[in-house]
């Protein structure tokens, strides 16, 4: 990276000097300079984007039409892999698990985040410390979170001990071993980890709401609830919409936490599209099939992103996008 940058900079001066000498008027030359500048600034990112994002996607699409162990010669399989993906019960269940997590996130995490953010936005004692504590889990990597919770959720582990100490021994379940429960156990861990992120995002949104509006509302005799409902929440809209977007995309791509805590088990009760992908693409050496799964996963995320952009985010991003020259 740094090396590439060096080359780019080294290439720049001669071009610039040559043009500076020959240009008579400011305007067209300025435009050309701007173009060159754009080209120079955009190329590194573009090269990386093409090399590490677009090409791999193209390669995955290409491989998905073949039967391929990764080592053998590729044999053309047409749409065979896709029909296999869409007929596979385990994959469909995995997709359903992703959707369950996404829906739960919006229904449970969002109100929680808003509530806590409103609380932490008020003048309360130890606000800075509380904010720090709330945000701390987000700083941990997903792998560390998973290992810590895996240990705590072992039979007779810390979680069980706490329930027992509180006299709630009857509540104890096989948190990670019960196929009907495991997905919700994972959701609790996900909430623990990502709640802080939502809160910080919403706090930032809250700070940008001019205090004059609240003052005006209270002068007009609005109650705290009315102010929140009619002034604060609508103005928080863009932040909430972007949080929903990030949360759903995150839920669709959920992997690390699940893989470490359950490997998608027991009996695929907690598998997600991404764990299914790794399980089939790598563990089984079915790279053609795995690629098809990856393409489906990509398509699901992409279609969601497009629809969401079109219908929910458009108002927020309009005007925020900088128009490129001309």
């Amino acid at each position, binding site marked *: 990276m740094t090396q590439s940058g060096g080359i780019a900079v080294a290439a720049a001066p001669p071009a610039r000097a040559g043009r500076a000498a020959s240009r008579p008027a400011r305007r067209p030359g300025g435009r050309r300079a701007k173009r060159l500048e754009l080209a120079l600034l955009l190329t590194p990112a573009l090269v990386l984007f093409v090399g590490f994002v677009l090409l791999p996607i193209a390669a995955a699409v290409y491989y998905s039409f073949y039967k391929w162990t*990764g*080592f053998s010669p590729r044999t053309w399989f047409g749409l065979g892999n896709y029909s296999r993906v869409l007929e596979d019960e385990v994959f469909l269940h995995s997709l359903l698990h992703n959707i369950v997590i996404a829906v739960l996130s919006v229904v449970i995490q969002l109100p929680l985040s808003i509530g806590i953010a409103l609380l932490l936005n008020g003048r309360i004692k130890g606000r800075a410390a509380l904010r720090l504590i709330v945000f701390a889990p987000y700083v941990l990597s997903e792998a560390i979170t998973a290992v810590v919770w895996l*240990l705590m959720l072992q039979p007779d582990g810390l979680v069980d001990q706490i329930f027992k100490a509180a006299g709630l021994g009857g509540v104890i379940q096989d948190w*990670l071993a019960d196929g009907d429960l495991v997905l919700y156990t994972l959701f609790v861990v996900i909430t623990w980890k990502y709640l802080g992120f939502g809160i910080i995002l919403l706090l930032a949104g809250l700070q940008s709401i001019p205090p004059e509006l609240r003052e005006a509302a209270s002068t007009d005799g609005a109650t705290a609830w009315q102010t929140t409902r009619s002034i604060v929440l609508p103005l928080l809209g863009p932040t909430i919409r972007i949080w929903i977007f990030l949360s759903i995309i995150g839920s669709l791509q959920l992997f690390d936490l699940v893989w470490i805590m359950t490997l998608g088990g027991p009996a695929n009760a907690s598998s997600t599209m991404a764990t299914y992908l790794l399980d089939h693409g790598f563990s089984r*050496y079915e790279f053609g099939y795995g690629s098809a799964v990856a393409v489906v996963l990509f398509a699901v995320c992409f279609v969601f992103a497009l629809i969401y952009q079109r219908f929910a985010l458009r108002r927020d991003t309009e005007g925020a996008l900088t128009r490129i020259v001309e």
Partner: protein
Amino acid sequence: MNVRLSTPRRLAAIAVALSMALPSLTACGDDSSDTPADANAPVTLTWWHNGQQDPALGVWQSVADQYHKDHPNVTFKVEPAQNEALKTKISVALQSPNPPSIFQQWGGGALATQVESGKIMDMTEQVKPWIGELGQAATGWQVEGKQYGIPYDLHVVGFWYRKDLFEQAGIAAPPKTMTELNDAVAKLKAKNITPISIGSKDKWPDAFWWSYFAIRECSTDTVKATVKNLKMDDPCWVKAGEDLKAFLATNPFQNAFLGTPAQQGAGSSAGLVANGKAAMELQGDWELPTMIPLTEDKQFASKLSWFPFPTIEGGKGTPGTALGGGDGFSCAVKAGPACADFLKYIASTDVQTKLVQTNTATLPSNPKAISAIQDPSLKTVQEYLNSAPYIQVYFDQALPTSVGQALNDAVADFFAGKGSPQGIVDAFTKAVANK
């Protein structure tokens, strides 16, 4: 993007882009030297193994150092990795132009799948003079009669059990038949002792159970034919699932076993036995060294002993047939003759003895190093291995990878109460059809 560039400028931009892209392209291209024609030419061997922790980590390094001392033209770049991560790394590396020179190899159907890449060295000619020393063991690393890898140790799956807990429950001798095993389970339960621990989270320990029922129910010929033709048409395979179903119904495992890992932490299935919280575990010979970091009890090994999987009344399997496998190494074609020579060194009595003495390997692949085994229960394991009329490599390793993993998944589902004995066979058939 609306930036329109005139042709020369576009060319210039492309040139700049290329000048930046090319160094990185060449960097991940060909960085190792080509195959040396001369055996004494300097060569660097990249070595990927799964001995990420001591003792294996230090021992493999010292083996490399010693070989380098004896053959100064050969230098090593040793890159250890965690077992599961290593498997993924290897499968990716074999698709790249530069796989590692030497890498961990478990043989069987997975090796056959990898050989299709054309990047694994056929060392049949080079090892001919000495491979006989390893006996039958080396055949697991052959594909169609050609040697593509050399084992450095062998594995057998059987029951590790706590002598102290068996005594407490009044079990006089380790069970020899399924009836006796069921009896032992009942006795242990009566004393409130968890009879058997299992690491079902990892799936493969489940497969050990089904596999053993299968090789007890199916004749050796049937098993061999199935691995070769990929057809489970003999009713014995379904019978194996029914036996397993009956056994699962006795509820012999620890609480919440579906979420228990096999080897990580004191709460793992290995940890439970090491800490005296469960009386038995069906696992490989590697359990003994695996347990060392999982318990505070330094004397745990003396409290353990081993017995083979019981016989099943009426089963067609040859008595004494064992489920096992081993660890070995393969060479990349590019690695050159030095690699095969290095593997010969690893299989030598000296190194093999050292592997056993340091707990890097429990059962050496070279029979001459057997005398180095000290632990009494490991001696029992070794004797069983020696007397086994046939050793079936774990099915997930013996079968083509996609089929083996599908079988593991089906058995794991079965442990979780989903599916049926016939369902396991169907999953196998389906995976073969999808191959």
